[in-house]
């Protein structure tokens, strides 16, 4: 039955839409249409009060169709379907018009064009809702299994939470060891636990869970399918060492390896062998061989029979219901010459400084490059808040103020004779971390502050390194500090994940981190249904925030998958038996074996097996008699929508 009483709501979205689209004009263009019972504008259609009003309108006026023109349906289609449902209107008699992402934002350079487009989009939606049918959702079985990509602290937290919700987990780590960046950290702030201890506790818990399978040296290389039923392929790279190997013979193998390369785990502060572990208690407790640097000299094989260079990579197909990306971050690598980096000796980054303290904390003196360190200058916001650099990182990495001040306190604790000079652009030790700023001030650390237009200058004259600043805190006095070590307080940048992005096609934001659908409303979901993001892969985050978002992603995924079935759109193919002459073309086109042959009034016709139909519609264009329609995308609906888009004002 065609809809006769349609309610149309046009959203300002604050000014997101109405700054570029004349929403009153849109309303006036459609309000007099015969089937439009009411048309109105609303400041925020998604607000509770507005939803209530729409509900009341539907009930009070017995509306039989609803159109809301607002943001992307990815954000609020579900919201307004629920509004319809609560008011007793079938949710499928609701049509959403995207006049924000695909109109006001896309055409903010053309306000007249944006308004005209919004009018046509709303007219199209009205035509479509007129043709819409009342439908019921369908349920399909879904894999109660999740793939978690990244076994840093965030990935392990996610895996544990999913496991507690009775969801099986494949935890997939690209490196050969778990723990990510946190494994490199010594004492952490807010707790006195070390990074290694935190990693160890999480790992031990992961190993206890029977429903978590950990893959290290593993990368997801392919993805197909959709939410509830993804198929991914994982490449497992060989470790070249058998698991049965004894600790003793491995230690010998490491000892005899003649290859020495810079140790990335310690940011090049020392060297490691080609067969290596980053630290003794690292997990899994089995070294690996770095084949990029191994010369295959055979020395290790002589002392350890469990080394096996014939190991090959494996490709493992996995079926999962969803995927959580928790792939962490990289530290910003300063450019050559940026505050003297890579040009002046004794200019290092915060991660290097952190490792330096760890490596030297038991020594009597603090030494770098054979130079005893007394004065340390810390330059903040390196790689963050780069307003003066085209394509620079505009965001504040936020964790680095606290992290650096905490390290300065630790440095002073281990080497009381040092002096700390902080060259800041305003300190952001927000929340519970503010105590560190207080403690650092009390221990005598000196704070100086500049703006973006007068950044500190690092210079070298012979053995002397100086840092100069025009200090805002002392009424713009020029200050110069002689220093033995300059620490560049580097922020976070996105992890290099190009291959992973290509596999999962998760959108990146302007900052290069993974993008959520909405940072407040759907903070861990992506536009790819069933693919979630968490931790510092999404934005700079400290450990506490990483843990929160990791648990949040696990909760969001569990809510969808824990029943082992999913409610899906009732988008199914339907055959008109009168028009069908059974030519078999639909069977050939369907990848899911969703057609069978049945008898109808003395002739052979096709019938859709609903349990197999995925609603892709591949069968539609191949039917020579146009006997197949897709529910929700019938010829009537699609063609009337096209009519609406071209409908001119009367």
């Amino acid at each position: 039955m065609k809809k006769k009483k349609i309610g149309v709501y046009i959203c300002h979205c604050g000014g997101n839409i109405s700054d570029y689209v004349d929403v009153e004009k849109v309303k006036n263009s459609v309000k007099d249409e015969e089937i439009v019972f009411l048309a109105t504008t609303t400041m925020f259609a998604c607000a509770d009060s507005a939803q209530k009003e729409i509900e009341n309108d539907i009930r009070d006026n017995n509306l039989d169709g609803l159109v809301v023109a607002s943001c992307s349906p990815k954000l609020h289609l579900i919201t307004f379907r629920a509004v319809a449902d609560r008011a007793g209107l079938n949710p499928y008699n609701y049509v959403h018009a995207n006049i924000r992402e695909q109109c006001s934002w896309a055409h903010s350079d053309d306000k007249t064009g944006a308004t005209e487009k919004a009018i046509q989009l709303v007219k199209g939606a009205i035509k479509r809702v007129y043709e819409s049918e009342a439908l019921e959702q369908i349920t399909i079985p879904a894999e109660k299994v999740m793939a978690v990509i990244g076994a840093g602290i965030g990935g392990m937290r996610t895996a544990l939470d999913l496991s507690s919700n009775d969801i099986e987990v494949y935890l997939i780590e690209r490196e050969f060891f778990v723990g990510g960046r946190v494994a490199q950290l010594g004492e952490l702030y807010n707790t006195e636990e070390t990074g290694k201890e935190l990693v160890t506790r999480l790992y031990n818990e992961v190993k206890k869970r029977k429903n978590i399978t950990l893959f290290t040296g593993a990368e997801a290389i392919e993805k197909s399918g959709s939410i509830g039923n993804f198929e991914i392929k994982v490449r497992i790279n060989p470790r070249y060492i058998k698991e049965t190997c004894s600790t003793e013979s491995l230690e010998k193998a490491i000892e005899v390896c003649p290859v020495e390369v810079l140790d990335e785990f310690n940011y090049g502060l020392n060297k490691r062998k080609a067969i290596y572990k980053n630290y003794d208690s690292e997990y899994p407790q089995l070294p690996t061989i770095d084949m990029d640097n191994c010369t295959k000299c055979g020395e290790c094989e002589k002392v350890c029979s469990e080394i096996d260079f014939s190991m090959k990579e494996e490709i493992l197909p996995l079926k999962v219901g969803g995927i959580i990306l928790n792939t962490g971050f990289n530290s910003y690598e300063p450019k050559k010459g940026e505050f003297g980096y890579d040009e002046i000796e004794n200019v290092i980054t915060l991660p290097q400084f952190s490792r330096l303290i760890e490596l030297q904390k038991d020594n009597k003196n603090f030494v770098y490059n054979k130079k005893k360190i007394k004065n340390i200058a810390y330059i903040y916001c390196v790689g963050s808040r780069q307003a003066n650099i085209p394509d620079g990182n505009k965001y504040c990495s936020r964790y680095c103020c606290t992290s650096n001040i905490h390290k300065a306190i630790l440095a002073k604790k281990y080497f009381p004779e040092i002096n700390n000079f902080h060259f800041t652009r305003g300190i952001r030790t927000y929340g519970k971390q503010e105590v560190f700023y207080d403690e650092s001030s009390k221990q005598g650390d000196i704070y100086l502050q500049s703006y973006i237009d007068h950044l500190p200058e690092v210079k070298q004259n012979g053995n002397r390194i100086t840092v100069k600043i025009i200090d805002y805190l002392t009424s713009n006095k020029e200050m110069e500090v002689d220093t033995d070590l300059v620490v560049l307080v580097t922020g976070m940048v996105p992890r290099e994940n190009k291959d992973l992005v290509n596999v999962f096609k998760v959108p990146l934001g302007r900052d290069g981190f993974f993008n959520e659908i909405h940072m407040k409303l759907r903070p861990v979901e992506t536009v790819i249904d069933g693919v979630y993001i968490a931790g510092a892969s999404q934005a700079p985050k400290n450990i506490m925030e990483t843990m929160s978002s990791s648990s949040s992603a696990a909760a969001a995924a569990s809510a969808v998958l824990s029943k082992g079935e999913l409610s899906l759109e009732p988008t199914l193919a339907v055959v008109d038996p009168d028009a069908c002459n059974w030519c078999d073309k639909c069977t050939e086109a369907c990848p899911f074996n969703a057609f069978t042959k049945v008898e109808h009034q003395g002739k052979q016709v096709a019938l859709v097996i609903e349990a197999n139909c995925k609603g892709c519609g591949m069968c539609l264009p191949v039917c020579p008699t146009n006997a197949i329609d897709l529910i929700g995308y019938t010829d009537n609906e699609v063609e009337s929508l096209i009519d609406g888009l071209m409908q001119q004002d009367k």
Partner: protein
Amino acid sequence: METKNNNSVPKILVFSTEKISDPAIDLAGLLKLHYPATAYTIDIPCSSAIKPRWILHAFEKGFDGVFIAADGTDCPYGESCSEKTAKIMSDTQKMMKEKGIDPVRLKMAAICSICAEAFVNHVKSLAVNLSKSK
């Protein structure tokens, strides 16, 4: 308010897919990557579900061009999507010829879920080509 005469700008109907190309088109808006305001999107589950009659209907109703933002190899319904969408494209172009509609008015490209810039470039170039032939 800025004004532009859109009468001369070709009208383009975009068939995009809910899971794959729609996010890219949304992303184009989010990133304020501008393209002609006369491009209208209809979302469908999969690009190999487009009926040629829908495309012909769009031309009959006055659209100057139709762009299929296809799933390509990212299609969640299977690898055969690219081949099937390409067939729809060529079948429709044959029908267009028979009806005296220039086949160049129908374009197709694979648009992945993060291909915002590619989408904008395709729509802009189709608009330019359609303007030339107008």
